[in-house]
């Protein structure tokens, strides 16, 4: 029985410099209880297609379709109020990808979860609260009863995302559209959420559209996959066919770009060097917070006696869930934060003895979000030269030469020298961040989730670049990430963090193929594997 039928969908955005055709001639259909994956990179039109269905397109967009029917109901025939009353919420629910901003900051979780069901007269207030608590529990929120009275800013990103999911399920939608529902989540939580969606689909015959740039996740969880590229649906078929017999060139390129978690790691710990570039010994860091004016002080032990060393020329991956302390450790290794106990040494000198500018010449950071870590009012030439200016190094000409060299290294065309960050793509921006890090010719880079904000194809390029720099410049690299496949791709050695401690450390090969710690094994088991399909998973269960 067909739940959703879209034929020849076209969406046009009218922009100041002319109309932009963002979705072209897309036809999709979905049966009850079926899961459809839509894959494509940012800007491919996959989110626009979903928004059109919910009538949530921006004002400047216009949309036409030969047919757009839900459960036998012709959607364009419904006028505004009729559509609002019937479709969004109880018929089609949608989960958005921005968990930090998708909940209203001034209302409690409880109010936001229950209001729609109560306003529609579906449930009484006590019933709605009961259902909300049960759903929060089901998505894995601890102490759901207490959470109901809390505000979004008191929850972590992952928790907010789970609240969003639970909130959408409050109205028991017949179709759930999940737009990158798990990008903000750790692999273990991601697996749990996707399992939950699978279960709901089976229990309630709910239709599911899973929108993602992650082909591995999509193939694993859906019956059929649609691949979108530049607004067009280039390929559609069973998950199996699309993964193993891709027909379109774009699908093939996308598949080739995905970091694999199978087979031996690309690096087998081939660096023979033993001198330690950066070393942390017994580093401990506590954070204290106070509840209320006279409340007791609460201590959080973010790092609990961590020892870690990065050897010359190697890429060490530091992996763990959010909250495990990996970013705190990265900040301390960069000298941006001081440990409460223990010591950090750079090339066998205590970091405390180094002047900030010397430290900056030695180790440089690359941050996660290329959209916010570059000053939007400065040109690339200024951004990249900034560390040199701060160090008061060289004159105008020599700085320009250094900038040009750094840009060449990261393969940014020289014509972008005077461009602003807003004129660049995400991948180009991350290259700028790397060029800025390289301009002081540092010995080491500390990269905090350098690719998690990027599309897979771009991610592959950035990972290749980091690898090339390591080879050519003998650069030492500490890579902080939660993505196992990325680790598999570039790491020589791996250190696994869990609750402020390093629970396992060893060569990439050993850790990935034969983890000795339970937590590492769980992390590996939860990571989506390329080539696994929904059927495989079911068999495994």
């Amino acid at each position: 029985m067909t739940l959703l039928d879209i034929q020849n969908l076209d969406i046009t955005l009218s922009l100041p410099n002319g109309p932009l055709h963002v979705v072209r001639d897309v036809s999709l259909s979905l049966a009850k209880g079926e899961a459809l994956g839509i894959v494509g990179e940012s800007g491919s039109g996959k989110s626009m297609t979903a928004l059109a269905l919910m009538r949530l397109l921006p004002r400047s967009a216009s949309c036409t379709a030969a047919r757009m029917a839900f459960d036998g109901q012709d959607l364009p025939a419904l006028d505004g109020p009729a559509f609002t009353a019937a479709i969004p919420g109880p018929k089609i629910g949608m989960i958005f990808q921005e968990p930090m901003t998708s909940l209203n900051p001034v209302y409690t979780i409880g109010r936001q979860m229950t209001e729609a069901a109560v306003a529609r007269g579906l449930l009484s207030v006590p019933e709605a609260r009961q259902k909300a608590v049960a759903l929060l529990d089901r998505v894995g929120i601890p102490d759901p009863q207490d959470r109901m009275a809390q505000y979004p800013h008191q929850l972590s990103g992952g928790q907010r995302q789970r609240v969003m999911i639970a909130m959408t399920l409050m109205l028991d939608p017949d179709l759930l559209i999940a737009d990158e529902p798990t990008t903000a989540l750790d692999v273990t939580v991601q697996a749990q959420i996707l399992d939950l969606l699978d279960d709901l689909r089976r229990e309630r015959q709910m239709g599911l559209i899973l929108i993602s740039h992650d082909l591995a996740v999509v193939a694993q969880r859906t019956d059929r996959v649609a691949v979108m590229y530049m607004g067009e649906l280039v390929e559609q078929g069973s998950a199996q066919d699309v993964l193993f017999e891709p027909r379109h060139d774009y699908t093939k390129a996308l598949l080739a770009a995905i970091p694999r978690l199978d087979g031996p790691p690309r690096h087998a710990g081939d660096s023979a060097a033993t001198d330690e570039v950066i070393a942390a010994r017994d580093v401990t860091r506590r954070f204290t917070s106070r509840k209320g004016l006279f409340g007791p002080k609460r201590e959080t032990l973010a790092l609990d006696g961590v020892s870690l060393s990065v050897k010359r020329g190697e890429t060490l991956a530091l992996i763990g869930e959010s909250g495990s302390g990996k970013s705190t450790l990265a900040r301390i290794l960069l000298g941006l934060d001081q440990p409460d106990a223990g010591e950090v040494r750079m090339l066998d000198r205590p970091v405390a003895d180094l002047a900030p500018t010397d430290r900056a010449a030695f180790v440089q950071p690359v941050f996660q979000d290329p959209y916010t870590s570059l000053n939007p009012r400065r040109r690339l030439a200024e951004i990249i030269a900034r560390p040199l200016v701060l160090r008061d190094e060289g004159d105008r000409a020599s700085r320009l030469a250094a900038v040009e060299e750094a840009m060449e290294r990261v393969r940014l065309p020289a014509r972008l020298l005077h461009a602003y960050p807003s004129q660049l793509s995400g991948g180009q921006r991350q290259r700028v961040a790397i060029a800025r890090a390289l301009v002081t010719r540092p010995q080491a880079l500390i990269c905090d989730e350098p690719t998690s904000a990027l599309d897979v194809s771009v991610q592959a390029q950035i990972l290749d670049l980091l690898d090339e720099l390591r080879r050519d410049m003998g650069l030492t690299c500490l890579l902080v990430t939660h993505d196992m496949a990325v680790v598999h791709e570039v790491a020589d050695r791996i250190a696994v963090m869990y609750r402020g401690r390093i629970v396992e450390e060893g060569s990439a090969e050993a850790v990935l193929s034969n983890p000795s710690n339970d937590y590492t094994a769980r992390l590996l088991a939860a990571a989506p594997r390329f080539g696994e399909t929904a059927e495989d998973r079911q068999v495994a269960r």
Partner: protein
Amino acid sequence: MLRYIALRGLLALLVAFTVSLAAFLLLNVAADPAQAIAGEDATPEVVETIRARYGLDRPLAVRYADWLGGVVQGDFGESYYWHKPVASLVADRADETITLAFSALAVTILIAIPLGALAALNPNSWIDRLALGVAVSAQAVPNFWLGLIMIILFAVMVPIFPVSGDDSWRHFVLPAFVLGASSVPAVMRLTRTGLIEVMGADYIRTARSKGFRGWQLLRRHALRNAILPVISVLAVQLGQKFGGSVITESIFAINGLGRLALESILGADIPTVQMLIFVFAIVFVAMNLLADILNAALDPRIRIG
């Protein structure tokens, strides 16, 4: 929340103290008060007599401590001009100004917020353009001119309201409109941009996906967020109404604090001017404190750090 209020209150006290010092210094150091009381043509002997009589020959610090000590007990000294305690003089006239300021604020709110909201919900439509036009012209028109025009239009040509005085509510309609109009542009523009920003927020999209549209969406999810910055500005505007009453009260012959300020300045009545500056400043500080508390009450991110 209590901690927050206590902290803000303490800060407000500090500001009040600073303002009292500034007001005192401004009046006592910038010019010679004895000379000002005596008048430009007075002989040096007369000036010296006045200086001694009002205790202006004492050191500045002593005079300030003396004055501040009185202020703490509610005693602002005696008016040189009316020969009455300044505090009772101000208390007698406060009614009119408070009525005028709050009705002017009501006018601002009633015009600016609906207009701003309409403009925000229909950006770049004719309503938006019209609202912008109103804002620009209200900004450009001086208060006294608007006051005179209103008198000509609605008191002389079409005599709906009295020309001047402060005997009934009808007397306050025109002055409240004139005084309120001056704040409309700022509040309206802020409401508009605030609401446009909020309506584009991700959580509004979430609410729409739950099936809220139109008025329900506005009331349930947008208003509280959009109103937060407006509250702070309204507090400042209310403070300005008290200060701005000087001109409006003169035009409409309302016997309030604004007129008192004008008269005491012309009469070189330093204790009265000093108290009025202090009172206007305290109103400003108090309104800002109130706005901070209101914002904290409406926004959990401020309340629960």
